[in-house]
């Protein structure tokens, strides 16, 4: 026991003197988790709470374009900034390049005229189909498109939701006009406002209900997504410190010297695993604490810990053990510290990307979903999300922990074979 204690003390001393390793193990993930959560949170707010400025060049002089702008304004998604209808397309593009707005729409000059004509046409067709006499229906009336300019920095998913909102507003205006035309054709008087409201505004509401294992409602947000993800990333980045330490011991000949001493080399490996597992637990503790106590002070949603603390501890322990095993394995196979740092860091970024830390794995192509299963980070994030987002308990993460333990044991075996082949044990 004294040998193990002395070895752990030695490993802790070396770790504490590795300033770069400590910085990468703690400071880098802390910065990353704050930055990424802030960015995702502000995107979330932009889409859901803040209004995005939209320049509107209304070249139409009719009432329907005014209704369209009013409808867009009522949606609460856009802050309408009217610009002179005389502005040319080039002038609008110039304004966009000057970052006046991320978005601009141009309502064509004949918008009201065309929509009205279309509504009359549809109304006529409807009356004819009812067996009543209506205006002779034309086969088709084409409406000039509404132009939407956007900054290329707007991501596709966000652009799609803007497009959806615009389509919805256009549909409301067109439907209202068709109803009015139909009502007028039948009753020869305008559609009463109350009836119009009843017909158009009585929409079925949508209740958004995240599915959870516990049955409780946990509202997902940028913090709940990012804190677990970057905690895993931080744990695996222990490779910079631990992988480098293993390589240094190999190169310096310390491992060789240990082999000449009357102590089993496994003591050295167990010590490294205990010491650095402690570091990964500390990383998780620091990052989770930040999520709980610091985030609300900097305008980010607070982290809600899962109700099953024991489950959280077990997941963190298994993730940490896998990260430590991977770092030791890399240290065993890499010839230089530079190799361990470079290959280690790149491989973790790749495994994180493939594993679903950066893009959710459900959104990946099928081939990548299969590859994700061999990334230990995938099973780590699945286990954390089950706890943090779905309100799961330890029994719910067992299907994630078993493959993760399997991968960890394979990594340990690979490290053992490497040590044997290099005659270090």
């Amino acid at each position, binding site marked *: 026991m004294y040998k193990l204690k*002395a070895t752990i003390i030695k490993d802790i001393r*070396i770790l504490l003197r590795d300033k770069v390793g400590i910085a990468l193990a703690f400071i880098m993930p802390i910065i990353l988790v704050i930055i990424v959560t802030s960015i995702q949170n502000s995107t979330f707010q932009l889409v859901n709470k803040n209004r995005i400025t939209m320049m509107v060049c209304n070249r139409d002089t009719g009432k329907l374009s005014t209704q369209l702008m009013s409808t867009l304004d009522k949606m609460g998604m856009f802050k309408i900034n009217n610009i002179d209808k005389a502005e040319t397309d080039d002038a609008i593009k110039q304004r966009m390049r000057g970052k006046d707005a991320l978005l601009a729409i141009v309502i064509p000059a004949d918008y009201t005229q065309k929509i009205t004509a279309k509504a009359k046409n549809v109304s006529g067709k409807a009356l004819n189909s009812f067996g009543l006499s209506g205006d002779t229906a034309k086969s088709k009336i084409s409406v000039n498109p509404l132009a939407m300019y956007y900054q290329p920095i707007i991501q596709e998913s966000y652009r799609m939701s803007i497009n959806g909102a615009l389509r919805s507003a256009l549909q409301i205006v067109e439907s209202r006009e068709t109803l009015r035309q139909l009502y007028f054709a039948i009753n020869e008087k305008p559609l009463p406002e109350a009836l119009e409201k009843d017909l158009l505004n009585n929409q079925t509401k949508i209740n958004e209900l995240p599915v959870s294992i516990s049955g409780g409602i946990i509202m997902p947000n940028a913090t709940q997504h990012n804190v677990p993800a970057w905690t895993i990333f931080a744990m695996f980045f222990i490779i910079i410190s631990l992988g480098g330490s293993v390589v240094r011991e190999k190169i310096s000949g*310390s491992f060789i010297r240990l*082999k000449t001493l*009357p*102590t089993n080399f496994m003591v050295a490996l167990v010590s490294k695993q205990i010491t650095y597992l402690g570091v990964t637990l500390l990383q998780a503790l620091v990052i989770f604490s930040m999520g709980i106590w610091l985030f609300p002070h900097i305008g980010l949603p607070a982290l809600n810990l899962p109700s099953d603390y024991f489950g959280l501890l077990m997941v963190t322990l298994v993730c940490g053990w896998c990260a430590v095993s991977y770092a030791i394995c890399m240290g065993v196979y890499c010839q230089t510290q530079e190799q361990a740092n470079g290959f280690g860091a790149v491989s973790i970024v790749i495994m994180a990307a493939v594993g679903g830390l950066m893009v959710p794995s459900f959104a990946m192509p099928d081939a990548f979903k299969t590859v994700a299963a061999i990334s230990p980070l995938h099973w780590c994030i699945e286990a954390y999300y089950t706890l943090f987002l779905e309100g799961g308990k330890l029994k719910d993460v067992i299907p994630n922990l078993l493959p993760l333990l399997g991968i960890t044991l394979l990594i340990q075996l690979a490290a053992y074979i490497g040590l044997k082949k290099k005659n270090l044990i």
Partner: protein
Amino acid sequence: MAITDSLAVDIQNLSFSYAEDAGVHYTGLNLQIPKGERFGLFGPNGAGKTTLMSLMTGLINADSGSIKLLGEPVDKKNKAVNKLFGFVPQDFSFYQELSPAENLEFFGAWAGLTKKQTNHRTTELLEVLGLQDVRNQQVQKFSGGMKRRVNLAIGVIHNPAILFLDEPTVGVDVQTRHAIIGYLHQLNEQGTTLVYTSHQLSEAEDLCNDVAMIDDGKIIAQGGLNSLMEKYKEPTLEGLFLKLTGKQYRD
């Protein structure tokens, strides 16, 4: 009393070759080093000195034959034999991030000492090797000579009966060399058998009383230093070395 009881190292019919026939190989090697010797192992680069040292310390395993240290077979499953010897490799095989005292504390535990024994030996060795004033400073800031002394201190932390030394004074100044050789004499007087290899032949003359010349995995001469110099009519070890191994480059 068996003859082996008086032997520090007893190598019988040793055969060894590296995988894919790379490097030196030994076939049927026999070597006996009596207890209490200051034994020098010399040869040109690539002759097999380090390989033999690695075989004697159990770092690599022989293909056949046996190696015994004080009657105990060298076998990776027999960790008891590792208590009998100390090893001072040519590289600085310790933790440069740690201080001399911290290194000795760790290696003392691995050598099987208790905390109390380690503390006692640490103080003793740092004093003898002139490292007491820097006992708590990180070794990475030390000069080459100071690092050599730390390397030596770790090798002898557990008072081994046999001490294997691979180039223990390479790259040090005259003062440090003098101190290290002096300390090795002192250890030998206390009963430690020294098995030493170096290219510093004048230093070897000061230290060794018995030598073996090896070349291409074979012992080409062995005996008392003075009797060998007399036999080959060479007044210095360097002359003897060149006479036996030739003047061609070996690497």
